[in-house]
């Protein structure tokens, strides 16, 4: 070909220059491959062994998964995750949407109010847990306050009541995260083309009607991403439970994350801990993948 007539080699500088982007991205990719994907496989491997205090690498089949699902504490953790997860998501969505819609009504001091609703997001779950642990204190906290207001029969002992302890996690968790959902929805509301709302007004629709049939349905993508994020927070929830109830009383407010920590690190059951970690990964995948997939498909089909 004619290019043979031209100098086929490139200058060294140009070669380096061309490789630079890949070189720069390299370490991150390597880190991701090893410390994310590699470690997932590693944990997966451990979950098929009889590792206890020290990791062992002879495969032993599904023993850990079998003992996991024969473990009452794991079932409590799973049930709690279902209860906590669904309530947490529902409350956050409802409160977040309410606040966003209210704030969207040309409110004075909107900025200040928004900041107030959102500041819990800046706190550590440990701080949140500590604060709510005090507020929900069965003798000195909310219970005493209401009793002093004249309702002397009032009891509020959820924090130490094994049947109710998981709901305290919902209360504290929703307090921390609903402001964030508000911010998402508010951004979504601000992104709606105002001429659509004007057109509906011209058509004679009332404001509540406009919200119900036009505005909120058009927030569908926001709902989806909010649900994905909230589900993700719920499944990973660890710090809040540790600070608020420590998983107790007993193990009544355990979640998979605290279960994994207890068995993997404090009770020297590495194999079981690995199995529970893998189950958490599968749960996240089971929730996130279908939601993301449906969203992507919807976007593609316009």
């Amino acid at each position, binding site marked *: 070909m004619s*290019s043979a007539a031209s100098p086929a080699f*490139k200058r060294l500088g140009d070669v380096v220059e061309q490789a630079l982007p890949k070189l720069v991205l390299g370490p991150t990719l390597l880190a991701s491959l090893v410390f994310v994907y590699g470690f997932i496989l590693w944990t997966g491997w451990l979950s098929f062994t009889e590792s206890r205090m020290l990791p062992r690498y002879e495969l032993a089949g599904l023993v850990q998964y079998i003992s996991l699902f024969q473990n009452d504490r794991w079932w409590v953790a799973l049930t709690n995750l279902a209860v906590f997860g669904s309530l947490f998501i529902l409350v956050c969505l409802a409160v977040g949407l309410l606040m966003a819609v209210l704030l969207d009504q040309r409110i004075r001091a909107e900025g200040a109010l928004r900041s107030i609703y959102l500041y819990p997001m800046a706190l550590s779950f440990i701080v949140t847990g500590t604060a709510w642990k005090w507020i929900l204190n069965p003798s000195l906290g909310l219970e005493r306050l209401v009793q002093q207001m004249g309702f002397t029969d009032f009891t509020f002992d959820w924090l130490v009541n094994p049947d109710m302890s998981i709901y305290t996690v919902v209360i504290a968790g929703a307090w921390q995260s609903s402001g964030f959902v508000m911010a998402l929805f508010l951004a979504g509301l601000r992104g709606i083309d105002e001429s659509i709302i004007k057109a509906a007004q011209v058509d004679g629709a009332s404001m509540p009607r406009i919200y119900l049939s036009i505005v909120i349905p058009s927030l569908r993508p926001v709902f989806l991403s909010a649900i994905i994020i909230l589900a993700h927070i719920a499944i990973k929830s660890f710090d809040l439970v540790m600070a608020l109830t420590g998983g107790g009383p007993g193990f009544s407010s355990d979640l998979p994350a605290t279960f994994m920590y207890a068995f993997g690190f404090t009770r020297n059951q590495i194999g079981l801990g690995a199995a529970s970690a893998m189950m958490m990964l599968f749960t996240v995948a089971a929730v996130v993948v279908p939601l993301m997939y449906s969203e992507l498909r919807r976007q593609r089909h316009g």
Partner: protein
Amino acid sequence: MASLEVRNVRRVFGSTEVLKDINLSIDSGDFLILVGPSGCGKSTLLNIIAGLDTPTSGDVLIGDQVVNHLSPKDRDIAMVFQSYALYPTMSVRKNISFGLEMRGVPKEERAKTVNRVAKILQIEHLLDRKPSQLSGGQRQRVAMGRAIARDPALFLFDEPLSNLDAKLRVEMRMEIKLLHERLKATIVYVTHDQIEAMTLGSRIAVMHGGEIRQFGPPQEIYDEPADLFVAGFIGSPSMNFIRTEVVERGGDIAVQLKTASGAFALSVPGQQAALRPWIGKSVILGLRPEQISAGGNGQTAGSKVQEQRLTIDLVEPTGPDTLLFTQISDATVCARVRPEHACRAGETMALAFDLSKAVFFDPQSEKRLRAP
């Protein structure tokens, strides 16, 4: 200034062939236009000339030197982008001198160049502003200034006017043309606007589907389109295309046309050799709107012009001309007449057809019919 040659350039992305064997050659000082609808490959070709993209095969030569192996900075080119691509954090002065600085030009010389360029483009008063403080037209000037300052062998323009409003676009078009004449620069200019292509270019390459459909001087492209696509793409309003049958009428070649009120034939002067093999067959007649004018002026006698009375469906005054639309052989046909000759919609009037510049296409291959 340098010549440019593109030899057998192909570019394949995955399984799609974006450029199919492109060949081009222009002389030093030429103004080459790459024109075509979006997705035709013109921007890819420009990027390949610039070195921002690599051809799958083939060569690019600037000033008779193969530059395939050279990175953009070593090709001695300058480029003006559609979005202007001004560096937003730098002042206009810095924007213009950045390329010189990268090439190690001494400071005093840079200052001198900036001032000279600013004078040419009349942007001296803008030198200390940031791009965000400029209007669209001013940004365009700065982008050109950045290119001129470098005094390159080759200027590349990537749809530089498409972000400007209509009035400014016409102004800037004139300025680019003046600049070209003043600098005697070699320019490659990408656009999808056929008016820009016609007014600016000394050579035009009309591209479609990764191929160059026709390459030549503007008037040749306009008068002698190589195929149906080029004929339809260049010219506004577009050329009329009418499906018709070639007949022989007393030794002459004619085309058979029909309207709601009946059929008529128009004889074709010239092109005997090209059309004779097509007698009795169907072809596509291409006739530009200005080749159909108002009849009944008594000038037709002895000329090649033939008249026919037709019902006018729609009238569109444009100011200097009025466009009349009528229905011939199932095609909507546009005629360009002087405003005072226009009738009203629904009326009939005599239209004069000048077929001396008519072109004919093979309905299958869509290629121009030429003498064998």
